[in-house]
């Protein structure tokens, strides 16, 4: 029946600019076309839905504020997944690491918010959220590097363990006495991050009541730092070497244990930082399940953005728009609930991740048809016959 044919993938090549632009665009387009079909399935118009969605996400200042607020979460969790990717690790544990990060920044706020202004709490919360996230990622990283555990399975398990642990903490220890709500008390001004209306007002955008806060700037800075780390530093060189070839890493004198642990800690720290945004920037308290899947959206964002910070910023904004626009859409077209976003997320992971190469052979073939006349001069160039 199904017969494996020898593929010629990798021999005929697409030019890099096509590979980095058209291929991801096609993959994401496929995800959206299928999503459109799902919308048709429930008898609604996808075109109309897109209209509401785009208006909801970008049509007015408050919408933009919300879009960027969500995008902030996804930038940080996306970077977390990307850094691990570069080291050849698949960190599915962003959700749990962010959850623990929330504990870190909540503890900072609970300790300090009554005594100091926000800008004193902020660096402490930053350090604790990153630190807690890093520690939660360190354990699977260490187990994988030192004991050979499968990091995917271990990080998944750690998500569940984190969830149970946090529920227990919130129910038994962190909720104020007498409260039935599994959440901490509300932080005071010392535990509240400032909004970014001052930044957008000069652009003529009024972000209104949206919770967009300075974590957005933290996320942008993190993008820049991750770019520098991966492509400009010696550590990044070591991370990428390990990611491409563990044997080459050993050969080059790079300790796989050390790099695995470091990469996982950076990854976990980035995921942990994400907690600042909802906990100190929006809700001013730690609630059950506040991460709300952002750790998993990070997987889609990293795959779609090809683990590059620029791609991650773009993919995060897209997903931020889906979250915000999706909420508007659910209001205007009640048949389309926000769960549609999860469908799209799954499809993006499928097409940009698992089916990444699906369109490439066709594109390569098409490109060779277009470009052939120009390349005839080179046809006689000697090539090694690979074995």
């Amino acid at each position: 029946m199904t017969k494996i044919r020898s593929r010629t993938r990798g021999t005929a090549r697409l030019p890099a600019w096509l590979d980095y632009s058209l291929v991801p665009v096609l993959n994401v387009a496929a995800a959206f076309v299928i999503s459109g079909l799902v919308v048709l399935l429930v008898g609604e118009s996808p075109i109309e839905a897109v209209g509401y969605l785009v208006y909801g996400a970008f049509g007015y200042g408050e919408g933009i504020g919300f879009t960027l607020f969500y995008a902030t979460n996804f930038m940080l969790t996306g970077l977390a997944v990307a850094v691990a990717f570069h080291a050849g690790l698949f960190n599915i544990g962003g959700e749990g690491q962010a959850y623990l990060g929330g504990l870190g920044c909540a503890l900072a706020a609970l300790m300090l918010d009554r005594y100091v202004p926000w800008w004193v709490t902020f660096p402490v919360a930053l350090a604790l959220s990153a630190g807690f996230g890093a520690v939660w990622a360190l354990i699977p990283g260490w187990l994988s590097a030192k004991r050979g555990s499968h990091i995917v399975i271990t990080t998944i398990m750690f998500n569940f363990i984190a969830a149970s642990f946090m529920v227990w903490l919130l129910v038994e220890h962190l909720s104020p006495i007498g409260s039935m709500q599994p959440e901490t008390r509300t932080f005071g001004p010392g535990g509240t991050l400032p909004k970014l209306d001052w930044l957008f007002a000069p652009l003529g955008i009024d972000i209104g009541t949206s919770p967009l806060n300075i974590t957005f700037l933290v996320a942008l800075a993190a993008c820049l730092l991750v770019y520098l780390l991966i492509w400009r530093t010696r550590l990044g060189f070591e991370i990428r070497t390990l990611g491409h070839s563990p044997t080459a890493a050993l050969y080059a004198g790079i300790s796989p244990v050390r790099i695995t642990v470091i990469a996982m800690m950076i990854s976990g720290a980035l995921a942990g930082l994400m907690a600042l945004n909802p906990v100190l920037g929006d809700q001013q308290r730690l609630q059950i399940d506040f991460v709300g899947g952002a750790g998993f959206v990070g997987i889609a964002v990293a795959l779609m953005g090809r683990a590059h910070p620029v791609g991650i910023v773009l993919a995060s904004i897209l997903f931020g728009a889906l979250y915000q626009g999706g909420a508007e859409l659910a209001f205007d077209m009640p048949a389309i609930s926000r769960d549609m976003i999860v469908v799209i997320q799954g499809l993006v992971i499928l097409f940009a991740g698992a089916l990444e190469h699906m369109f490439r052979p066709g594109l390569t073939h098409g490109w060779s048809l277009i470009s052939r006349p120009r390349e005839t001069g080179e046809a006689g160039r000697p090539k090694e016959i690979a074995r």
Partner: protein
Amino acid sequence: MSFDALILVLDSTIRLSVPLILAALGGLFSERAGVFDIGLEGKMLIAAFAAAAVGAVYGSAWLGLGAGILASVALSLVHGYASISQRGSQIVSGVAINFLAAGLTAFLGYAWFSRGGQTPPLPPSGRFQTLTLPFADAVRDVPIFGPIYSTLLSGHNLLVYLGFLAVPLTAWIIYRTRFGLRLRAVGENPAAVDTAGISVAWLRYRAVIVCGIFCGLAGAYLSIAQSAGFVRDMTAGKGFIALAALIFAKWRPWPLLGACLLFGLLDAAAIRLQGVSVPGIGEVPVQFMQALPYILVVVLLAGFIGKAVPPRAGGVPYVKER
């Protein structure tokens, strides 16, 4: 704990472990063939939804079961296409399937039934009813044996018995048949299978389809046998517990049964022990009991209690050498 209480805990252990057994057996077929599957959860979820939706609309448990299996197999084929034909990452594909299922079930359920993501309650004909074994009522009052027979062994629905029968059946298929031999071979060294003149792709597709059927049974069990309808996120991590059981059992059918029963027991005990103080330990937080299977798997994978060596070719797409 009294004898009757013990019987009750064991009875719920059986009920709780059946979906784990079915899903884990599905995973066994797929992973033994070299296709890792972290999408058991998603396949169970979509099957639970499809079974409940069809069961509610047509009032037939069998139609519901068929729909559940079909939906689950459809996702299996997506996984197969991505990881066998397109040679994509099996992990990424599994993650995608979990989200796809979580999103689709909630979205379609909401749009079709307008009940906040739930399906309408099933009529009795839309569910698998409990079966009473012969003489169950007659022997109920016999000491020891009576409760064991009439409460523990009798009084379950068809899928429970099917789940337990599937274990020896799987063991037989895996170790005693041509299909099983080839399945194990393709998970260890697909090139050996290819050069022996057997299609690697078709063999692996069959394995993922079998996996889909089992996950379909597991999902249908949740929504149209154990309960009377679908609720959002009804699997609640059971697919991952099944995966954990599969790893715990080192990809072998009989130990898999043991692992699923153990995890089922933990679950049953967690419910039972809620708010109860255990002598010498004090009150065990229910969250700890819930997390225990996950903790056990982490410890196992780290090699502190034995070593779980997965099928050698697992997770790696088959590409002919050049």
